[in-house]
């Protein structure tokens, strides 16, 4: 039997005042395997640790039990102590006799009994501990950033500035994302594109950044430090290397379709760049709407292109890249306001959503910044802004607050009042939420200086009466129903995850919540990491936020990646699942329960009765496994075990506890 040393900590009086440590020591001495018992006033102190090292050497200890505080506190400390003494650090067990015992059990006798039981279980368990070794994996110092909105751009720039290569993948023909669609940003009212476009250009020009626009993530394999990603570069039908971005093709193209960028408030051509400042400033052909692709005739763009850059026969290209880390910044969609039938969105032309309003007030938008209502292009003399369309509504929408709508609606109302001096702006709200620097002041100014009227109540109905819209609501501050007659209504839709957010999450192997937002590893302490090591989150794909928060999170993700890339190798935790291949039947029922996709089939070849046969077994990817152990329970024959928490160890602890309780029983 292995030689066990037990170190009983007093923790000053924290333990010793309640637990009779001497009595515990006396009983522990009799336990099988125990060859050395020692009490320390503070085991975690320098002298305490030194005495462990000394005892290991003097008594030839092979296993160590420390009965002290919670292992969550000092397990790493004592593992290092063992390592210093030349023992495998995982030959340690701790008995938590402070948090779980002395601090909560004032009855000295009972606390002492329990302390002994805890040590007894630890001794039995430590005898089953196996030597474990940390592994190491090399790190490919290149990052993939998924999504080219402000979050992706910021993360990419930060990582690239730290000296690492970045691959920035964007689905749309240009980077820029939602922020490019906005007019001004609250609360400072600086122009969105004025602050965004320089960053777009920086990203495109950066020597360390490779830009794949009009491209999508196809596949991800591997694990932290060693991801293999496949990106589909969709056919632009334009040779980017030849195109000069002159824009002649767009001018001549005869086909007009509603512009996605203008959210249907304006038109674009079938060959187009979404907006003039697009990066790269090279058009794509929208094959679904292009006359040539539909009828085989036209080719006007090809004729007018002096650079001869049009490529009707271009095909999608799959690009494979090796990266060490992935930043996900895939952004969001807006809630479909037509779910609220009572608001008439989609039915009454002058009921629009907030993003459409952004395009209407944007100087580069379809109305060149003049607020004209869609039905008759007249300037509305009055506008109602309706908050929480979808947000905070469990009946029809989503339960959460979308965080930015209060502020941008206040901004919209302010901008409207600024442009239409004699106009009236009503904001229908449930609560105005202004948690941000200078946000509350901005809100105050909107009513005091600009005369925006705030009505606390969620509209119950919006309907057309002649050329006016009637907004019915209850003013809950006055306790009275109100009906506002306005000429335009702007709905503030909830921010919702991208339509395909769940698929993205599944491709990446990260978890997502019931709405489809990607889950951070810890809501407070690990807000930019995911539970899959090496994958980080930035921006609204993780949850609604405004631009400052998005940029902050993106930089945080960038810093995480840079920190990871500061080393050539990283150590892996050995307390992960392990397959006993001799036992494994290869049924792979362990595979679906693994949250990290760490289990794959592997073919092993072996000699049976002189013949070489091969069969499939489960195999655990040490880079992916996080050691939860869910697979061990799915494994019927016990081939899958969790190092550090093996079946033997758990059973031994249980058996020891209960066997010890009835010593007279046989």
């Amino acid at each position, binding site marked *: 039997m292995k030689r066990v040393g037990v170190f009983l900590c007093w923790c000053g009086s924290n333990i010793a005042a309640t637990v009779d440590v001497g009595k515990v020591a006396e009983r522990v001495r009799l336990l099988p395997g125990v060859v050395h018992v020692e009490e320390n006033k503070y085991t975690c102190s320098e002298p305490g640790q030194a005495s462990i090292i000394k005892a290991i050497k003097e008594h030839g200890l092979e296993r160590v039990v420390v009965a002290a505080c919670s292992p969550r506190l000092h397990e790493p400390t004592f593992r290092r102590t063992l390592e210093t003494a030349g023992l495998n650090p995982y030959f340690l067990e701790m008995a938590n006799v402070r948090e779980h015992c002395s601090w909560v059990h004032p009855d000295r006798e009972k606390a002492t009994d329990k302390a002994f039981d805890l040590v007894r279980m630890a001794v039995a368990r430590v*005898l089953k501990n196996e030597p474990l070794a940390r592994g190491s994996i090399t790190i490919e110092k290149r990052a993939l950033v998924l999504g080219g909105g402000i979050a992706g751009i910021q993360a990419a720039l930060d990582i690239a500035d730290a000296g690492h290569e970045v691959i920035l993948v964007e689905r749309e023909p240009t980077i820029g994302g939602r922020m490019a669609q906005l007019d001004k940003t609250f609360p400072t009212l600086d122009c969105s594109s004025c602050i965004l476009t320089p960053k777009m250009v920086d990203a495109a020009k950066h020597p360390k950044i490779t830009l794949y626009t009009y491209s999508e993530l196809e596949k991800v394999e591997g694990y932290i430090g060693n991801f293999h990603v496949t990106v589909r570069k969709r056919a632009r039908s334009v040779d980017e290397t030849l195109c000069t971005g002159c824009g002649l093709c767009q001018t001549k193209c005869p086909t007009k379709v509603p512009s996605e960028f203008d959210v249907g408030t304006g038109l674009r051509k079938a060959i187009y760049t979404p907006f003039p400042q697009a990066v790269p400033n090279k058009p794509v052909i929208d094959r679904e709407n292009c006359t040539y692709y539909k009828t085989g005739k036209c080719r006007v763009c090809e004729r007018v292109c002096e650079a001869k850059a049009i490529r009707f026969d271009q095909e999608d290209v799959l690009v494979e890249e090796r990266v060490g880390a992935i930043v996900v910044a895939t952004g969001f969609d807006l809630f479909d306001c037509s779910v609220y039938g009572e608001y008439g969105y989609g039915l009454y032309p002058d009921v629009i959503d907030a993003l459409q309003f952004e395009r209407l007030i944007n100087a580069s938008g379809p109305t060149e910044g003049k607020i004209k209502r869609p039905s008759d292009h007249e300037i509305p003399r009055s506008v109602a802004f309706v908050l929480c369309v979808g947000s905070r509504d469990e009946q029809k929408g989503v339960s959460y607050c979308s965080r930015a709508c209060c502020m941008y609606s206040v901004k919209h109302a302010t901008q409207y009042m600024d442009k239409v001096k004699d106009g009236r702006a009503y904001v229908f709200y449930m609560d105005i939420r202004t948690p941000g620097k200078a946000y509350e002041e901005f809100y105050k100014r909107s009513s005091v200086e600009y005369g925006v009227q705030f009505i606390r109540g969620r509209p119950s109905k919006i309907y057309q009466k002649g050329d006016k819209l009637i907004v019915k609501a209850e003013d809950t501050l006055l306790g009275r129903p109100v009906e506002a007659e306005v000429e335009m209504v702007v709905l503030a839709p909830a921010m919702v995850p991208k339509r395909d957010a769940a698929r993205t999450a599944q491709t990446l192997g990260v978890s997502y919540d019931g709405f489809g937002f990607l889950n951070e590893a810890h809501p407070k302490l690990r807000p930019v990491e995911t539970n899959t090591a090496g994958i980080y989150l930035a921006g609204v794909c993780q949850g609604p936020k405004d631009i400052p928060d998005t940029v902050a999170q993106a930089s945080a993700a960038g810093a995480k990646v840079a920190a990871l890339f500061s080393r050539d190798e990283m150590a892996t935790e050995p307390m992960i699942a392990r397959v006993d291949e001799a036992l494994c039947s290869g049924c792979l029922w362990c595979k679906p329960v693994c949250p990290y996709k760490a289990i794959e089939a592997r073919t092993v070849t072996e000699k049976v009765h002189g013949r070489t046969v091969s069969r499939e077994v489960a195999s655990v990817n040490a880079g992916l496994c996080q050691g939860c152990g869910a697979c061990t329970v799915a494994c019927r024959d016990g081939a899958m075990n969790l190092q550090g928490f093996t079946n033997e160890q758990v059973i031994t602890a249980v*058996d020891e506890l209960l066997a010890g309780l009835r010593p007279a029983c046989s």
Partner: protein
Amino acid sequence: MAESAATPAESRPPGTAGTAVEKPPAGEETREWEPVIVGFLCNWCSYAGADSAGTARMVHPTNVRIVRVPCSGRVNPRFVLRAFQRGADGVLISGCHPGDCHYSTGNFYARRRLLLLKGYLEYLGIDPRRFRTHWVSASEGQKWAEVVRSMCEEVKALGPAPSLGNLV
């Protein structure tokens, strides 16, 4: 005595909770019977929650002996039946709240397994009050203390778990 027990019974020192009713150790007064409850706690939420209870000095009964596991998804139902067989008066499993699992989905799988187990234990004749599952987060020291208190009271009222055979 089970063959699997690691050591011969005689070598064990006397006197811990749970022994009094059956055979009071020599030289000690007969104490009130105390149930023994085996607690399987996930490392990230509930074990930390029990730690918080300690840090906040929330006094609760001594009867629960905690076996730390990384996740409630690591708890094999066999462990639970094993504990009952070897004489536990109760088994308590505690993990992160559904949706808050450190490993994102471990406790969802645990929930399915343990739901089945719970029904089955009752089917086997084990009083369902002896087997409890609670979701306790790292910050819920108070809840942990409450859970322990109420379970101990309940199991104590039930008395020693009936022995199934000659194992215990």
